[in-house]
């Protein structure tokens, strides 16, 4: 990614990816948008001060993961303060699907998301970076500051549990 002069350009190019990662690592979508905004501002400032840097994608991933971790650490107070929330299953169903397909798809997606939320934080991070962000296992380990062996262990456990959820096993 080349250094960008305009914040708007950066926003268009990076926001979808940053928001998607934040939504995976944080349960509250509003909070995810909030953190994504913070990350984009940091990215913009960093690009202004270090325009010669060329490895921004990895930088963005690392900063996003760290920002989400920070947000989760201070989440207990906001969780207490905020209203309770529930999943709305209608949001899981593609509008193009028929009623029966929609019901099945909705059920499968609900199971997958519930299983993902049930993973440990490390497993969530590793799976998101490897299979949603498409990083290599080596890059995942480096981004999360862990050994490659540890990243593989977390990843395999995450894959195992998510596949069980996919098959409908508890």
């Amino acid at each position, binding site marked *: 990614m080349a250094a960008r002069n305009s914040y708007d350009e950066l926003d268009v190019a990076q926001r979808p990816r940053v928001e998607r990662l934040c939504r995976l690592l944080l349960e509250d979508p509003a909070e995810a948008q909030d953190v994504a905004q913070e990350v984009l501002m940091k990215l913009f400032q960093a690009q202004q001060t270090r325009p010669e840097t060329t490895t921004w994608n990895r930088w963005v991933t690392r900063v996003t993961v760290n920002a989400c971790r920070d947000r989760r650490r201070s989440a207990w107070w906001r969780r207490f303060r905020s209203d309770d929330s529930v999943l*709305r299953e209608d949001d899981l169903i593609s509008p193009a699907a028929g009623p029966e397909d929609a019901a099945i798809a909705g059920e499968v997606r609900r199971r997958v998301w519930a299983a993902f939320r049930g993973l440990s934080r490390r497993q969530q991070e590793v799976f998101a970076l490897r299979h949603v962000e498409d990083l290599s296992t080596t890059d995942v380990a480096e981004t999360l500051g862990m050994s490659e062996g540890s990243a593989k262990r977390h990843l395999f456990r995450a894959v195992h549990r998510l596949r069980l959820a996919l098959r409908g096993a508890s």
Partner: protein
Amino acid sequence: MKDCLSDRSLWSVLEGEGTERERAHLADCQRCTSRGQRLTHDLSFLGRVLSDAPPLPVSVPHAGWTPVRWAAVAAVIVMGLMFGWMRGKPALDRPAPVLADMPVMETLAGEVFADSGFGSALASSDATDLDALAGVSDETAPCEWLPGGCDDDTTLF
């Protein structure tokens, strides 16, 4: 098919790792090939589900619950403050209350001890309890209490 790859080995091979023997087995074994395809499909599907359609939580305000939650916090704070205040003033360090500062008690003492002489002594001044007792009982005090003591030897036994 007892030599089939374990889930972990199969996953490792698909991740681009695994031993030469495991890779060779995957290439030859119909069952493991099929398992590998299913795993690849599952991972792709899981990635799509988690990237395309994140579920949107809906904010559901619980009108009855939120005030109760805050009321509980307020109650705990008040109890904490009271507890701290009471512990900060130990009973022994507190000055004894003076009757003159408590009109109700003063009146009550006057009524109760009207006949005994205590009431007037208590009500007339801001003297301490011992002074009041001494004032009332001066005339009938035992000789041992008096400054000169008892001159009569017989009083000792």
